[in-house]
């Protein structure tokens, strides 16, 4: 299997959350494998927009096309416009990577309804919006790759993480349901299950980082590229028969009792 079997030469990818570590890593890996990559932010913040533009410049230096849409992924109009623009610009849409991440943790009695709704909206509803917007071009092509990045908190619970855990689990089962819905339409829908990764929002606390590093079978956190690069495999033409699955990349975290 030469590297060419996995080549994404001239495919068109759309990456949500490219101003955040894992989304950025996925976007760069797809570009390295030959894809043109349209980038979006998760939220309309200057910090994310700056990071997404830096990612775009890295892709341009690899001689691949790239552009940035600074959007709020929970805004239906923003998402539709960005995807329509991508199809107009590039003539097609082959790969959709959803890597929005809004971390949040609090004891449940203190979680305001507005907070709960926002965490669900950014982490879960955004995936519904992008998949719905991408469905048009992908169903027309009868070919597409959708890759949703989820946290291992979608599979295991964590105290104080109720809203985030619920949202991540929602993305996992949305992935399975859509995989079945589009199984005969040439669109595969899979997830990358990210283990504890450097730069991840839920890891802001230094004590938690240190505890996890000791706890993990690998005794280290993942680097964002170790999560993002797997998108190349899932996006490649070798995976027509792989759908509805979660590709966990967790350093053994889920194996541990």
């Amino acid at each position, binding site marked *: 299997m030469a590297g060419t079997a996995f080549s994404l030469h001239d495919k068109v990818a759309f990456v949500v959350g490219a101003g955040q570590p894992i989304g950025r890593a996925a976007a760069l890996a797809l570009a390295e494998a030959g894809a043109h990559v349209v980038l979006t932010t998760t939220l309309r913040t200057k910090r994310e927009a700056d990071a997404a533009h830096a990612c775009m410049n890295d892709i341009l230096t690899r001689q691949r096309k790239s552009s940035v849409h600074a959007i709020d992924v929970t805004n239906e109009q923003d998402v539709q416009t960005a995807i329509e623009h991508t199809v107009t610009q590039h003539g097609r849409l082959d790969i959709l990577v959803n890597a929005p991440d809004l971390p949040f943790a609090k004891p449940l009695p203190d979680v305001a309804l507005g907070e709960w709704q926002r965490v669900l909206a950014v982490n879960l509803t955004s995936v519904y919006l992008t998949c719905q917007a991408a469905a048009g071009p992908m169903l027309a092509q009868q070919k597409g790759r959708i890759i949703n990045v989820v946290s291992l908190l979608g599979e295991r619970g964590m105290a104080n993480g109720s809203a985030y855990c619920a949202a991540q689990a929602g993305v996992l089962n949305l992935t399975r349901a859509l995989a079945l819905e589009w199984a005969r339409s040439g669109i595969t829908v899979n997830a990358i299950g990210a283990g504890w990764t450097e730069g991840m929002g839920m890891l802001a606390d230094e004590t938690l980082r240190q505890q996890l590093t000791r706890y993990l079978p690998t005794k280290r956190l993942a680097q964002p590229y170790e999560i993002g690069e797997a998108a190349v495999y899932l996006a490649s033409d070798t995976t027509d028969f792989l759908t509805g*699955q979660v590709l966990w990349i*967790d350093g053994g975290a889920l194996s541990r009792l």
Partner: protein
Amino acid sequence: MSVLDKLRLDGKVAIMTGAGRGLGREMALALAEAGADIVAAARTQAQLDETAALVRAQGRRCLVIPTDVTDSAAVNAMVDATIAEYGRFDILVNNAGGATRGMNRPVEAITDEQWRTGIDVNLTGAFYCCRAVLPHMMRQGSGKIINVTSGLGVRAGRNNIMYSTAKAGLINFTRALAMNYADKNIQSTLILPGIFPHDDPELLAYWQGGKFIPVGRPGKDDELGPLCVFLASDLANYMNGELVALEGGGLAGGQVPTGFAPVVLLPEGEQ
């Protein structure tokens, strides 16, 4: 190094059990195409020779070692021969196995012999191979172990009692490997292939052309190799204890016999 270069296996050595035919041969050829030299192990010399010829046609080396994986002395000898020939190895794929022992029998009709030999070939053989390679991988400071399980290892079917049990055992054996050797830079993962009839008309008829598989067809022989290459490559360096199923979507659902739920609308006034 580009991400596509990381998917190359140049200079690496891979042992494939059950390499004489079917998916074992396909995976061995894919690893060879990605640059790895191969050790082809299985019981039947003639089939291994065919695999070896195909590997060599790709310009890679292939060591043929007829091996019964249920014989631990034979497994140890196979690993020793590999070290003697190549001086190293990087990848072990435990692919040998078989579902036929005790198949189509209820629990009360499975003989001691069928149960024991079935568990031996599907589970104990993988243990023997891992036991033999791990000291070398630890000395080397790296290694990848890929175990091949089955849909019957995560869900139960009718009439496959021994096989379901053995393949489930292999899954948790892999997690145990991950847990215990992760900090030695040895990654253990699982491939779960769906239905691959190898263009055999009889098998295709048996599986009804794969019409009950969500994607509407069974797997093609050349679809499994790339997954094996991915898991054996540096792209999978943080994967450990995890299972990747390549099976056309069946495991994602299986709850609705017709495939699609009928449309259910929200109540009046709830939209």
